[in-house]
């Protein structure tokens, strides 16, 4: 059995995507915590292109980019807990929605971490985030319990950050976007997702996460002093 190692970072939702997938599949792995302020030679060697976590190393061969890693995990351990549907069209939809979230990453990051003044929902960036969440709720989730149907799948894992990390982001910025009144189905999904035992048992401490998010924002806004209008 070839060794599996995960280079991760404790507050990172991308790191957690990989952890959740490995745990759902029952794959044993060694976890190595990276200090992103002082990247190890191993990380730089394994991910010379982006120099980021997560990196999965299997039998000495590294794979980077969490979505690529998730698909690798699905291809390598196909017999336990399928993360993607069997039907090719549904698989295409799953990939589409995961990419949709990835493509919105910068908009979400900017709205929460780069704007230096406290703004309310009138802020244009926050409006875009809310719009994104509404599309997800209406078109990706619909009336299903999970994006994957009755059980969580790759899309749920990809959006897992919304169920937990996002709350920290909202609290940090003093906004409330994902509420039962505004996004009832998505909010319910978030609550259900967090209750799945593999997820529940693999989440970072919320208080520590909030402290971390605040320090990231301070660092980012110090580097970008002018606020967006």
């Amino acid at each position, binding site marked *: 059995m070839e060794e599996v190692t995960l280079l991760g970072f404790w507050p990172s939702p991308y790191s957690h995507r990989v952890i959740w997938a490995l745990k759902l599949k029952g794959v044993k792995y060694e976890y190595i915590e990276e200090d992103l302020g002082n990247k190890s030679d191993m990380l730089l060697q394994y991910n010379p*292109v982006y120099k980021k976590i997560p990196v999965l190393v299997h039998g000495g061969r590294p794979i980077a980019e969490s979505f690529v890693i998730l*698909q*690798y995990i699905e291809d390598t351990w196909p017999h336990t807990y399928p993360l993607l549907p069997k039907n090719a069209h549904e698989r*295409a939809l799953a*990939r*589409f929605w995961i990419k949709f979230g990835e493509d919105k990453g910068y908009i979400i990051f900017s709205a929460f971490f780069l704007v230096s003044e406290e703004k309310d929902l009138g802020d244009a960036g926050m409006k875009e985030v809310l719009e994104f969440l509404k599309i997800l709720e209406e078109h990706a989730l619909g009336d299903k319990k999970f994006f994957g149907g009755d059980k969580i799948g790759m899309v749920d894992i990809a959006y897992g950050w919304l169920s937990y990390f996002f709350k920290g982001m909202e609290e940090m910025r003093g906004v409330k976007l994902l509420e039962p009144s505004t996004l009832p189905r998505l909010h319910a999904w978030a609550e259900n997702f967090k209750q799945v035992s593999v997820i529940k048992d693999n989440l970072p401490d919320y208080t520590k996460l909030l402290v971390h998010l605040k320090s990231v924002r301070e660092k980012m806004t110090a580097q970008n002093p002018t606020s967006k209008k």
Partner: protein
Amino acid sequence: MGDQVKLIATPQSLPCCRVEWALKLKEVDYEYIEEDLRNKSAFLLESNPIHKKVPVLLHAGKPIVESLVILEYIEETWKDKYPLLSDDPHERAMARFWAKFGDEKCVVGAFGAAWLTEGEEKNKAIESAQESLAFLEKQIEGKKYFGGEQIGFLDLAVGWIPHWLKALEEVGEMKVLDPGRFPSLHEWGQNFLEIPLIKNSLPPREKVVEYFNAGRSYKRSLEAANKP
């Protein structure tokens, strides 16, 4: 017919061509529906309501969008002919990783540099695009194609480089793919364009140049309109 395949596309669009190449390699019969992007059809808007873009593949009436997602769909649906991806999970991961890199770094980098007017910023953008291409150069070194002895998923994903990048260089008045700096990538490009299926389906260079110029004017007019 129940299993009919349709492709909504524009001839000069690089993501559309990727999909056509995959369909042709797999010998899939399809109906080509040309889209005028300046006057989007109700059919396109209905088939791709989220992004309203081409390409859209329709199979038995069901739409699939996003070119790399479509490639994966084509690979999974028509398994018997011409595999685009290896069976080995690690090689599949590498193809996916580099395809994503190609789109996020090389396409974005090259287009970004093309749209800038001459100056320091443009030079920096060109250098950045070249740094991204350097990674692809390393990947292709010693290989005929990214897929090995025959073209595969990654060749299709970065297949825009030998033809579209040339057009972009013309429109952007810049040189990015310098054969001296990227000998292996350049040679791969020449080999790729020689493949009859690819050669016969390339849109004429002048048309691609025209398409890019139109895109750049449109973008500039949007920017001018958005200025206070």
